């Protein structure tokens, strides 16, 4: 209770007082209130402070300002200094307030006292001090060093900032483990693959919706999820004045409600539709000539089923169009696709016509769902190739790359490696990346990416080896990874598991040690990047309130504390690394506390943005203090067409025939003494020969036979889910109905009434969904917005831990069911992505 609350200002007095003024003056600050405010007697609205930070609730990573009044965070808005989204925001930001003040948050480090691990078995955590907790960790690391088994230390990264390279990557390296494992393959690596093997961009895209004329989205629900939700929410209504929108999705999403056309495709068949569109665009002569080129004599020879002489076509900024046509596209007619997609050929032709009319001011969006499928890589490439055909790459109203930004690099730890560490680093990584079946071709490099979900299998099979110490950080893989129960079993097998977390999650439940994490928006330093509106921005997270509970900066502070303890045990390299490499770039002072390491690391990485002496481009910022005050730096606007002819592909062009893919696959094949057909076979693709280097049709792999599992499951994002972390918020539970077809305070599976009738299921019934992987129980919601034969369900509910709002009975019983318990641990192997989507067969029973 604060002193001001003791002042009993009658509300009526305020009203009477203001009533004596002219009514028109109501929009101006009230003189009486102003006078009282000066005297410190009332809280004048907006007399608090807006402080810059960043939201980490989803991959939009919006720059924010948090409203601080009375030492508390009371409100949030988009950061007014952001050129990406300005003050615009999304509903999820508010749930961060409830995460911050969550009564179930971890307050202090805790140690398990019950050695028996299992769901429903109380770990009997007891509070311990940070000193005890860090000593325990240091002892475990020293044990591994003594045995020269440092590779058996594994760090797992969940939601993170750019500072995480210290805790996860470099600290892990200095200790001597190759196992810094990111969550990225649960996120969207297959998406990056699509743009990498066409235009050399292993990254995400921004969409110039202000100047577009046609948006075709394969599964993206930009008003709910994907990147830069705030910006797209802010502009969508205006875009509808100028552009048409078609959304391809088995489920009617929030964005479908604001689109001209919903295309309820059969799950797993996005690739087929994109190929038919490409076919039709060519047959209709609708490709964008200034980008793609033309037949030398100007006569269109793309005729259904007929091969074309490659010498008759002269490409400009693209490569391999005719080969693509001859080997694949010529037979992919709309009629061919219609049967697979469940979409009329006429509708496909009509959409092709609209794309042609609007090109190059068109944009093809692709979601996780359309490409994170077992055979999704070629769908990703095919959908993106449409942007190439229509010439929308880097065009006004088209699809733009994120601008590269001059962020400084995390100081290297290489010179701090001793012999034990070097030996440890030589071991195979625990996630099996680079094996024949896991090419994980990040940026074309065999084993360059991560295969996050394979770690559980590696632990269970002790192949390549059994980890001895797993440190998880802001991750909850037993909840967020397909086949989540495997993680619960795997964690039981590991001798020592430590978890840095805000809440006791389904991962923490199997941990031996819990370390309280600061909230990643309000209580720590961090750095994020996002793009939209032609700008790329870098924003910082900073402590905006006094942290709640006994928390330590996680990404930088925890490694510092461990390093101090290791130094006491005679292993000084980690401390030397941090102390020497993370000095304040302004004063040269070495860090002396966890907070200082975090702050200095933030300053080092962002120095090109705030230090005038290191200025390169974009916003001019006068110094660190100003940067902290603003919280965000903006790039210059993205330059159109600059990459035409200079793409980072093998040919420098946009590749319909991916020479870049050919090089990557051949290198991977050579490593395993096979050919590219061998790689295709090992990764579950049907293509052989040159088809592997271009978009082509792959029959979706169906999990579960048609008879036992007659329906298909469609996993999707809820508008209010902060990557599964907001379910312990009452505001979340009470407003879930904003997702089309969803219900408040319930975990629903949405069934088309046609299917429901056949199953004898009514609205609100308890149902059991069973796949080849397992079963979950939830509630049925009857909804016309799901394709008959499919069942759609949002990720985010089904917690049995995390808190007393999220779980029906904390530690024991889930509120609804977690989708990842029925999703098989499938992969899109070429990228290493987990495959949450495609054709996941299920059956539904009333219980």
């Amino acid at each position: 209770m604060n002193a001001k609350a003791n002042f009993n200002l009658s509300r009526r007095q305020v009203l009477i007082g203001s009533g004596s003024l002219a009514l028109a003056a109501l929009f101006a600050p009230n003189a009486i209130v102003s006078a009282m405010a000066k005297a410190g007697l009332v809280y004048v609205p907006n007399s608090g402070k807006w402080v810059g930070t960043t939201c980490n609730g989803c991959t939009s990573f919006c720059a924010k300002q948090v409203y601080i009044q009375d030492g508390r965070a009371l409100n949030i808005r988009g950061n007014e200094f952001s050129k990406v989204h300005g003050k615009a925001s999304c509903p999820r930001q508010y749930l961060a307030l409830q995460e911050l003040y969550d009564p179930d948050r971890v307050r202090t480090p805790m140690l398990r006292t019950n050695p028996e691990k299992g769901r429903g078995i109380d770990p009997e955590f007891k509070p311990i001090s940070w000193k005890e907790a860090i000593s325990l960790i240091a002892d475990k690391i020293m044990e591994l060093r003594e045995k020269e088994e440092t590779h058996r230390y594994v760090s797992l990264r969940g939601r993170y900032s750019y500072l995480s390279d210290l805790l996860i990557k470099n600290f892990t390296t200095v200790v001597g483990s190759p196992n810094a494992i990111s969550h990225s393959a649960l996120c969207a690596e297959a998406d990056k693959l699509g743009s990498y093997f066409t235009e050399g961009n292993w990254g995400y895209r921004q969409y110039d919706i202000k100047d577009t004329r046609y948006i075709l989205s394969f599964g993206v629900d930009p008003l709910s999820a994907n990147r830069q939700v705030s910006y797209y929410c802010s502009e969508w209504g205006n875009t509808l004045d100028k552009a048409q929108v078609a959304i391809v999705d088995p489920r009617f999403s929030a964005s479908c409600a604001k689109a001209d056309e919903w295309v309820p495709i059969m799950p797993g068949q996005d690739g087929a539709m994109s190929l038919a569109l490409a076919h039709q665009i060519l047959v209709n002569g609708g490709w964008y000539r200034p980008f793609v080129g033309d037949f030398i004599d100007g006569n269109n020879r793309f005729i259904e089923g007929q091969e074309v002489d490659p010498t008759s076509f002269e490409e400009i900024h693209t490569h391999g169009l005719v080969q693509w046509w001859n080997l694949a596209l010529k037979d992919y007619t709309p009629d061919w696709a219609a049967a697979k997609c469940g979409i009329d050929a006429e509708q496909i032709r009509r959409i092709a016509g609209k794309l042609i009319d609007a090109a190059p001011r068109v944009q093809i969006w692709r979601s996780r769902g359309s490409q994170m499928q077992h055979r999704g890589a070629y769908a990703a490439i095919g959908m993106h190739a449409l942007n190439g055909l229509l010439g929308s790459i880097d065009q006004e109203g088209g699809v733009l790359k994120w601008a590269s930004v001059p962020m400084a690099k995390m100081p290297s730890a290489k010179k701090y490696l001793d012999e034990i560490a070097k030996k440890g680093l030589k071991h195979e990584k625990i996630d099996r990346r680079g094996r024949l079946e896991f090419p994980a071709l990040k940026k074309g490099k065999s084993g360059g990416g991560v295969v996050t979900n394979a770690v559980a299998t590696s632990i269970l099979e002790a192949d390549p080896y059994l980890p001895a110490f797993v440190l998880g950080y802001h991750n909850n893989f037993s909840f967020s990874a397909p086949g989540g129960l495997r993680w619960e079993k795997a964690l039981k097998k590991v001798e020592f598991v430590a978890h840095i977390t805000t809440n006791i999650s389904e991962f923490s439940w199997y941990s031996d040690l819990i370390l309280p994490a600061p909230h990643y928006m309000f209580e720590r330093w961090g750095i994020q990047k996002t793009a939209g509106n032609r700008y790329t921005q870098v924003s910082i997270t900073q402590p905006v309130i006094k942290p709640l509970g006994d928390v330590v900066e996680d990404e930088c502070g925890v490694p510092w504390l461990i390093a101090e303890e290791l130094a006491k045990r005679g292993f000084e390299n980690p401390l030397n690394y941090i102390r020497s490499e993370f000095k304040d770039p302004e004063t040269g002072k070495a860090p002396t506390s966890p907070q200082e390491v975090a702050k200095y690391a933030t300053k080092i990485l962002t120095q090109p943005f705030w230090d005038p002496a290191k200025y390169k481009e974009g916003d001019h910022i006068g110094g660190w203090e100003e940067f902290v005050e603003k919280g965000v730096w903006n790039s210059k606007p993205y330059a159109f067409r600059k990459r035409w002819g200079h793409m980072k592909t093998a040919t420098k062009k946009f590749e319909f025939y991916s020479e870049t893919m050919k090089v990557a696959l051949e290198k991977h094949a050579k490593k395993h003494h096979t050919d590219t057909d061998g790689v295709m076979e090992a990764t579950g693709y049907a293509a052989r020969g040159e088809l592997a280097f271009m978009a082509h049709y792959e029959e979706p792999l169906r999990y579960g036979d048609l008879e036992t599992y007659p329906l298909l499951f469609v996993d999707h994002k809820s508008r209010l889910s902060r990557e599964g972390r907001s379910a312990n918020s009452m505001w979340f539970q009470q407003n879930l109905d904003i997702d089309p077809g969803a219900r408040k305070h319930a975990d629903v599976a949405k069934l088309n009434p046609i299917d429901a009738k056949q199953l004898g299921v009514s609205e609100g019934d308890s149902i059991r969904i069973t796949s080849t992987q397992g079963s979950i129980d939830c509630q049925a919601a009857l909804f016309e917005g799901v394709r008959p034969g499919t069942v759609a369900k949002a990720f985010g509910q089904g917690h049995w831990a995390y808190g007393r709002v999220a779980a029906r009975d904390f530690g024991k019983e889930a509120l609804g069911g977690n989708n990842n318990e029925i999703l098989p641990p499938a992969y899109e192997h070429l990228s290493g992505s987990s495959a949450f989507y495609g054709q996941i067969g299920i059956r539904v029973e009333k219980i």
Partner: protein
Amino acid sequence: MRYGMVIDQQKCVGCSGCVFACKAENHTTDDINWCDKIITTSGQYPDVKFEYVSTMCNHCDNAPCVGACPTQAMHKGEGGLTLHDPDKCIGCKACMVNCPYGVISFNWEKPHERWLVDTGVAAGSFTSATMLMAAGGEGSPHSNPESAEAYPSVRSRGTVEKCNFCVHRLKAGLSPACVDACPSRARVVGDLDDPASEVSQLIRKYEGKPLRAELGTGAKVFYIRSYTPERRT
């Protein structure tokens, strides 16, 4: 001077940012939303329509709730706002019965009681009570001392409550919280008596209508354009 609001349904993306901004500003309980929504799903597969209509007190010129209130707790204030004085409220719910929009809520329980709970999920976790103590705040950590200047932050059990257009913010020259929070700038507040105000211009340009205009309550929240784009297929 008559405060009114315009909501542009084409710009609205149904995100409910207004709902949460209102909760944060006015410290409503988990179950009560001053700013709420009507969601309708219609049509048959594949011709489905989903519409989101943001709702709140319409501050009617001829407010049925004011007429029905036996104690003048519900009353008309300056700027044509319909305001509520909880000190006078006897909880008879006549206002709720008479409100054709269903935007008045009743406190059946003592608000924010869950924040008194002093048990946690583990020995090293917070409890509601310890979190409230650590964070501060009246009733819950989300209480806002600024809105408490105009309306009690923690309401009494057995009284009603509803949107007051953030009268405390209007007095300070600010827009209601829901208006500032809207990411798509779909909401505009202003003076309906001033033909040059943005609200008046928008209502004229797009023939804005309040909900259930036929009732003649003189509702002052107007809706323009359509949530669903014309199907231009």
